[in-house]
């Protein structure tokens, strides 16, 4: 068990430099990459950002939500509502969906925060189901069969298809970078310390004067903000929305598997998990359900044998942290039944 006081390490400085170079290279993709590559990268960016946000919730905030698809779908529907009924510029719906998602997350938090621990997880899922079934009832939004983005709204992004693709690409890249940087800065701040304290021991942190409720609420709202904004972006790329796809539990399934396999409770973990997910998905896509079964079995095995995930194994072995934030202190685990 290592405890760190120093944030900056040699590995982290190298990591930051590599990240900076990588971002610069990724910025240039629209000038040399083909359309398929860009589409794949956009998907990687938004899944990575979603995974980071879920990791913030569960890995740091202790809020294991199984209902984040509520905000993905909400963001998607906000895109359509803002564009079609309020004539907002398509790109501008992304930050607006984020803000509105954060506002709507408040009453949701009021309800689901009444459920403690394990029950919170399923409570969030119920909320997502309510959104799914509720949006399916709204005739103006196409009911259960959903709706498509008007051509004019798509054209408003940019005149040519290449420019549109590039704009969406940069937007997705910007979101992913902003989410990772934001979480990194948050965790290194005073709030990050409070979050780590809560995760390690709710009671101890309370006795230290940390306001658990406020800290958790803040994390919940931040995750809702980010997830809703990403939801709007996702449906800019998809153009068509249906309630059953937008509020699909499989969004959260994918995210959870990525975070668990990569390593929960670290910023590197979701990055590793996302890379593994997409690397394996390409060759295993023809096997469909077997790929999900494989992911499920892997996630169970990782949770049992290496609860800090693949990144946890790697960083413990080589004592490396690319994004060093306060680490978790492991206390007595000898009382576990087996």
């Amino acid at each position, binding site marked *: *068990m290592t405890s760190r006081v120093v944030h900056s390490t040699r590995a982290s400085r190298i990591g930051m430099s590599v990240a900076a170079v990588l971002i610069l290279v990724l910025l240039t993709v629209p000038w040399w990459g083909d359309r398929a590559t860009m589409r794949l990268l956009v998907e990687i960016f938004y899944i990575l950002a979603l995974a980071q946000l879920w990791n913030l919730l569960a890995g740091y905030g202790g809020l294991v939500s199984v209902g984040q698809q509520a905000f993905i779908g909400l963001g998607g529907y906000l895109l359509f509502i803002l564009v079609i009924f309020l004539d907002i510029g398509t790109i501008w719906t992304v930050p607006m969906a984020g803000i509105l998602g954060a506002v709507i997350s408040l009453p949701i938090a009021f309800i689901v925060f009444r459920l403690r621990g394990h029950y919170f997880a399923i409570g969030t899922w119920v909320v997502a189901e309510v959104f799914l079934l509720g949006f399916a009832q709204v005739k103006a939004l196409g009911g259960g069969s959903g709706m498509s983005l008007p051509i004019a709204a798509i054209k408003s992004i940019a005149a040519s298809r290449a420019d549109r693709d590039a704009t969406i690409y940069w937007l997705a890249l910007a979101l992913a970078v902003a989410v990772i940087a934001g979480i990194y800065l948050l965790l290194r701040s005073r709030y990050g310390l409070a979050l780590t304290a809560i995760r390690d021991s709710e009671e101890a942190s309370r006795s230290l004067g940390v306001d658990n409720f406020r800290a958790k609420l803040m994390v919940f709202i931040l995750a809702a903000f980010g997830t809703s904004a990403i939801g709007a972006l996702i449906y800019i790329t998809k153009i068509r929305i249906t309630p059953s796809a937008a509020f699909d539990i499989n969004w959260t399934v994918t995210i959870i598997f990525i975070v668990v396999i990569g390593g929960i409770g670290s910023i590197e973990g979701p990055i590793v998990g996302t890379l593994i997910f997409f690397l394996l998905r390409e060759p295993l896509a023809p096997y469909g359900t077997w790929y999900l079964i494989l992911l499920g079995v892997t996630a169970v095995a990782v949770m049992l044998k290496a609860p800090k995930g693949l990144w946890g194994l790697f960083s413990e072995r080589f004592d490396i942290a690319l994004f060093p934030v306060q680490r978790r202190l492991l*206390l*007595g685990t000898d009382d576990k039944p087996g």
Partner: protein
Amino acid sequence: MSLLEIRNLDAFYGDFQALFGFDFDLEEHETVAAIGANGAGKTTLLRAITGMVAATSEVLSYRGESIQSREAADIVALGVAMVPEGRRLFPSLSVEENLVIGGYSGRPGRWSLERVYELFPALRNRRSVPGTALSGGEQQMTAIGRALMSNPDLILFDELSLGLAPVVVKEIYEVLPVIKAEGTAMVVVEQDINRALEVADRVYCLQEGRLALTGAPGDLTRDRISAAYFGT
């Protein structure tokens, strides 16, 4: 062969070590008092015997059989019972159910519900109320009765008098000779030194996780005990 033999015991709570190279012996039918200040390691000793805390040792044997890293439930089945600190009655079980569950491991022996009620007549009328509805003294009686129901050869009492009124403590201590007369060995962890010395054949005095002093009560002077207790 001693009933309980412990050599070089280290016990841990996570990274915190509570006992250091501790040696301990207990003969059949013997009553031993373990005394010491808060945090001296008395409770940890009992928890190590019952397999409730992470511990390593050269020898940790009961009737010559190693109980190192045995499951708590198995150790109880061998005839070791515990009266835990704070009584720890089961709130959703009635007094009688609390007693009955003490005999869960099904060890045969002389103790029965009827005999426990004879020992503690006060419990008989309260048999169907929840354990937590009892007074502190009655709760302690239930906890002792619960331990007796497993027909143990060894009972570990943790902080027997803690939080009880003096008159109740007296009543509880009057029961110990009855239990002893059945041939049951006892380890009594106690902060009330005088009480402990009254019943004990031998005393172990712990200090910061180590053995500070041991001997028969008659052989130990007050000064030596308080020196061992307070570490002066």
